[in-house]
């Protein structure tokens, strides 16, 4: 079974973010998607680069937002599950030495 925390979400191509003052909107090329992102969701979306693990996101959110790791884990997981369920990210598994650690 893959280690979920060591997996790395990667944004699918063809998606772009329109930045507004109050919120940001994630759109696809076909115009069929318009997902509103708040500051936290946008920050996590930008971290979906195929290199950053969910575990790293949780640690950073916990430190930056001064919240317990358990709460950060819930928040990050919810956001990533939403991205995944909408088909916005692919998951990269660790390879080579990292995979065996």
């Amino acid at each position, binding site marked *: 079974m893959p280690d979920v925390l060591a997996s790395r979400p990667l944004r699918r191509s063809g998606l772009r973010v329109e930045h507004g003052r109050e919120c940001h909107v994630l759109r696809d090329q076909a115009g069929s998607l318009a997902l509103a992102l708040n*500051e*936290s969701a*946008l*920050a*996590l979306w*930008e*971290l979906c680069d195929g290199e*950053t693990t969910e575990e*790293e*996101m949780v*640690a*950073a*959110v916990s*430190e*930056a*937002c*001064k*919240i317990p790791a358990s709460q950060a884990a819930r928040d990050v997981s919810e956001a990533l599950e939403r991205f995944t369920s909408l088909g916005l990210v692919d998951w990269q598994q660790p390879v080579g030495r990292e995979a065996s650690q």
Partner: protein
Amino acid sequence: MVACGEPLLREALVGSLSVCADTEVVAAPGRPEMVVAEAAIRRPEVVVVCGGEAQWDETALCGQLKDLDHPARVLVVGPPGDDAALLAAMRAGADGYVGSDESVEDLVDALHRVRRGEAPIPPGMLGTLLRSLIEARREDDEAVRRFSALSAREQEVLALVVAGCDRREIGRRLYLSPHTARTHIQNILVKLGVHSQLEASTFVLNHGLLERFGSEPGANTKEAGDARRLG
């Protein structure tokens, strides 16, 4: 408490915050050395730190305020859009950050959020902060990995290098010949991936490696051994 180096700005902040409901300004020190002393005495719920043009070291102040027996929450007013200043403040323990270009309303809102235990970050800066924290953690992990590759003896030698000892002094303290001490130092530089003793010292200090690994300079030196025998 409002800690601000600029008299005019300090008075404006005090005036603005004093009229807010549920907010009382208990002190407004104008010099950095007074901030920690006032905070220790008055135990404010939140300290708003705003060096202004006086160029205070907000990071050092955050650390000192967090080291108090009754640490206050700290809200830093810093340069707008300055990712490095934001990262430094948050890593030093700040509970929130407001850009100096934001309105008094924004500052009051951030103050209330800090009091509620939230961590206000200026709009658009959270992503960069998270990225910076992740990068910093990766660098720390890599530093720990390299330091862990040193033998116990090499860690002792490195601690003495950081303490400023030359190879003769290191040899004397660890019962080594200067030649052996030099060999250890060369191996250390290779394993740490640095090119000089100065770079090695900076690497160790920047990542707090001696504190993490409990490698105190001189722990197993000739003097320490003599002291143990005498004790």
